[in-house]
């Protein structure tokens, strides 16, 4: 069970949050302009790194805000959480 820092509410138990996969994927402006391949990549293909991962969480049982977390999937480190409109933070190289 992680302790997760909601950028708004502060640090809370993981029980209050739900994870939602890779962050920083913008929905294409013009889906119709994409090939099947490009569209399929957008909806289904994901980074699934062993190590540093930027992913989305939502504070479901708190402020209900979505935010991003930089986490290491190979251990239990959480480097940072940040708001959706913020850029990826600098994190230690692993």
């Amino acid at each position: 069970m992680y302790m997760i820092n909601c950028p708004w509410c502060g640090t809370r138990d993981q029980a209050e949050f739900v994870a939602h996969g890779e962050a920083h994927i913008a929905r294409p402006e013009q889906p119709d302009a994409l090939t099947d391949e490009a569209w399929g990549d957008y909806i289904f293909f994901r980074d699934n790194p062993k190590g540093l991962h930027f992913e989305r969480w939502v504070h479901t049982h708190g402020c209900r805000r979505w935010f991003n977390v930089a986490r290491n999937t190979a251990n239990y480190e959480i480097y940072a959480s940040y708001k959706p409109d913020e850029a990826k933070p600098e994190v230690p190289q692993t």
Partner: protein
Amino acid sequence: MKNKYSIFSLARNALSYHQKWQHTWRNPEPKKHYDVIIIGGGGHGLATAYYLAKECGITNVAVLEKSWLGGGNTGRNTTIVRSNYLWDESAAIYEHSMKLWEGLSQDLNYNVMYSPRGLIHVAHSVHDMQEIQRRGNANFLNGIDAEFLTPEQIQARVPFINLDCRYPVMGGILQKRGGTARHDAVAWGYARAADAMGVDIIQNCEVTGFNISDGKVIGVQTSRGNIGANKVGVVTAGHCSVLAEMAGFRLPVESFPLQAMVSEPVKPIVDCVIMSNGVHAYISQSDKGELVIGASSDTYTSYTQTGGFNVIEETIGAIVELYPAFSRMKMLRQWGGIVDVTVDRSPILSKTPVENLMFNCGWGTGGFKATPGSGNVFAHSLAKGEMHPYAAPFSIDRFHSGALVDEGAAAAVAH
């Protein structure tokens, strides 16, 4: 040829205090080049090698395992075996697998303890009932055994079940040929049999990269040096995305922690496998006596082989809700695996953007049962350079064309 295993060889060896048994598999040094390299020494990888040697006549094969063979999900799953899947494509490959299970101990000369003691899916809602009806009917028409049970029939089989739990039991579906098999024995049996036919099983050999030339794979880089190959099959389950990244592409897969646990060993009390999607509890009892219980996965990806205690709480909560008598039982050990989950909950058996490089992954939370079938069709696919008909529907292309085999959807949508 190795010692053949039987009651006679056991008795004979007993006389010499078992001093004469041979290695179950060798510890070969990697050769410079193989016809086929299989990456991943789990059940699927080992089975692939075995069938390559046995059915395709290709014995210049290496299985490269980064750690100890069978230590991935093969060594940490709840060992449930069944073939009663909904879609024709799934039913075909899982039933192919089931047929192989039925003769596997004899085929491998290794007792994998495949135990068709019956598997019951319990339905807790109108929606569950519709789901099992549809699936059971489909199984029947596909020639797969299916039997519907009333709550009373379930109670007769599982006397201590609480039919009147939070989601009252409305019925169930039984696959009599479903059951369990001994996970470790599956890995060891395939390894032994493959090794006997000349396959090199190389443990502690981690693949760290691919050698690709002109879009064709020509070998792999490993912690024990470069090894050349004509063809490479990647069967690394939870780590498939890591390997794909090495080869320069992505997969429609995410790796989640999935946990399981065992109770202390007790005398026989659960004589079949009982699965409940409604309250989310899966339980069976091993031959050693532990209750083997499967949990659900966490919502975040992880490669740590552990998961959150909250998931354990939910799982045991469901077990106690459904079997109140187990409240005084104790959890002996909990652990986790890394499951490679696709969007449609169906596997990927596929060619890739790199020529001669095929992937077999995405089995997620349910691929143990597929071990023989998956290995078998993947071996044929590698040998031929074309996907076996049972494998063809599971190509990566489906995520672009939309031809999903959506085993997850039926249960996952709104009421």
